[in-house]
């Protein structure tokens, strides 16, 4: 099923709108994640797509049919909630067959209900637990029952509202894979809501980043990670998050001057900027990922474009070392090889090796094309 959200808006009673003018297009069989901090309107959006919340303005289309006034049960959707929301008085089997029990035309005979429930349960490896009550299951099992219940109707659209956030870290990783595998196997269009950027990046075909009800960027995980449209997207994605250095133009469009310390960073000729947005004296944020930097010892001469700083903490991550470098009041994080000789409180040079993110400090927009 293709989904189209057009200028979708939601106002709760007279307070600031929760969702403002959201436009999204979702292709058949895609897994799209709506990502954002809490209170950004992502769950509201999902509940409007489900038909549980009334739509204040705009349209929701499934394929080409307008869905605004269609009841949730007629939208042919399955939904999984953060806390599983299983019916506590029913067994696992009854929970999974509940959506089938209610189907009217055609009615599903009991025999077929059980068969379908069993086959869905097999997909999520639950077939041995069908007689249990939800309270006798672990969190991960409960969430799998919820997924089975959402899938048993063979819905055209699967909605996942923070399905993994109530699980512990290890289980979350394995459920990520499991949901992605199921989604691919069944080729079911899926919208997932999450505040966990790692979850979004590892599972999604497309990510929509939302902030205060406004869509910030919609694209593939790769595009969002490498070419964020603005500072918010850049800082929200990636762990540890993107480094920022306050700068201004030394020569507009050609080199940057770090505000604190006065280091000059020349831009490589390959960096293509949006010339029309460049102004003299513009405040800038130079962004780079912790792995997009080159650290060298202060005992050698400064490499071109490097910033001087002092190592405060060395974190051992296993594959490499993460340095926290203090450059005046700014803290930078930088990955170096495990065998890189560095000690805490040592002075180093930190050079930037990738220039994909130069933001206007006021508007936050990315000046790199």
């Amino acid at each position, binding site marked *: 099923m293709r989904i189209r959200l057009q200028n979708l808006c939601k106002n709760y009673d007279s307070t600031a709108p929760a969702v403002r003018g959201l436009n999204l297009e979702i292709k058949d069989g895609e897994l799209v994640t709506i990502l954002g901090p809490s209170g950004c309107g992502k769950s509201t959006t999902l*509940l409007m797509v*489900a*038909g*549980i919340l009334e739509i204040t303005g705009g349209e929701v289309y499934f394929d080409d049919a307008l869905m605004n006034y269609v*009841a*949730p*049960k*007629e*939208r042919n*959707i*399955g*939904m999984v*909630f*953060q*806390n599983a*929301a299983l*019916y*506590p*008085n*029913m067994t696992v089997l009854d929970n999974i067959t*509940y*959506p089938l029990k*209610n*189907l*009217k035309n055609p009615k599903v005979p009991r025999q077929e209900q059980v068969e379908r429930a069993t086959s869905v349960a097999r997909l999520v490896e639950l077939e041995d637990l069908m007689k249990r009550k939800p309270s006798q299951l672990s969190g991960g099992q409960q969430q799998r029952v919820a997924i089975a*219940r959402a899938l048993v*109707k063979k819905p055209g659209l699967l909605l996942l509202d923070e399905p993994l956030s109530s699980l512990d870290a290890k289980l979350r990783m394995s459920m990520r894979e499991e949901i992605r595998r199921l989604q691919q196997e069944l080729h079911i269009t899926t919208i997932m809501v999450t505040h966990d950027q790692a979850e979004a990046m590892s599972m999604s075909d497309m990510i929509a980043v939302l902030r205060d009800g406004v869509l910030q960027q919609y694209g593939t995980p790769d595009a969002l990670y490498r070419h964020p449209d603005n500072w918010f997207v850049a800082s929200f994605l990636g762990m540890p998050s993107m480094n920022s250095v306050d700068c201004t133009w030394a020569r507009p469009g050609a080199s940057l001057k770090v505000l604190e310390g006065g280091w000059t960073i020349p831009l490589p000729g390959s960096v293509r900027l949006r010339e029309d947005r460049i102004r003299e004296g513009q405040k800038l944020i130079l962004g780079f990922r912790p792995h997009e930097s080159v650290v060298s010892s202060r005992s050698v001469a400064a490499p071109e474009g490097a910033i001087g700083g002092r190592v405060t903490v060395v974190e051992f991550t296993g594959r490499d070392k993460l340095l926290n470098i203090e450059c005046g009041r700014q803290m930078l994080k930088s990955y170096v090889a495990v065998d890189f000789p560095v000690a805490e409180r040592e002075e180093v040079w930190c050079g930037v090796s990738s220039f994909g993110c130069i933001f206007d400090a006021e508007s936050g927009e990315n000046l790199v094309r």
Partner: protein
Amino acid sequence: MSSLMMQRNEHKSLRNRALRLRQGVPNVVSLVVMSVGSVPLLLMYVWMVVVSFGDGGLVPRHFTFQNWSFLWSGLSGVGRANLNIWRLLANSLAIAVGEAVLQVGGALFAGYVISRGRFPGRKVLLQSTLLTHAFPAITGLIAAFYILNAVGLINTLAGVILLKGFGGMPMATWIIKGFFDDVPRELEWASKIDSGSRLKTFFHVFLPLVWPGVMAISLFAFLSGWGEYVMISVFIFDDRVNTISVIVRNLYSDEAARGFGVVMAVSTFYMIPCLILYFFAQKSLLKMKI
């Protein structure tokens, strides 16, 4: 030095025993205070049962079943008629069960709507339900008499059932609303998406979850009907539609003639259904919070 250490580490050392006793002192105090309050109450009931098997005095001397003969030969000498106790029991049950069914039926749906619905006037409705409890019920008695008389329900059980049922409904609605409030929204949403209609959602999702509340308000309604005295004595004049509560009162004023034995026997008989109910509903009552 070392012997002192040894003594400290032994559970049964004198010092440790004294410490343990001292920790228990506050418990003993609270036990004593609670006993002073509750033991006399309990003893009164025990006494009642004892007197019912005695020879009529408040301090029984012989054991006898004579007082319980009303179970098979009826109650004689109360007012004018010889009353069949089973008929009285049926009347009491009719009022209690009738009130419970009416009240729970109404409160269940009202509580659901007030808890889950969003409609104009919801807040006012919520507040006004409590307001009905601000006035003593007795003040409405005369008005109720006229109304019952006008609609021809005076001197009938149905009249009392209606009054009692609707009278207790606001409080029952409040209690059950609290249970509905505790049902997570997601469950309701899930059922909405799983193509459950409103009624199906109510019966399959909500009702099992608020069941302890239903048990609680049913019990309250039943007991309130079972113990009703004032309305029955005011609205019902016919001895044949009397209830046990009224008869116990009448027996009591006749006590001079026949001793306390029969009064206590009937009272004990009157209490048994309540005890049975409490026994079964205890678990649900414990889950209630107001």
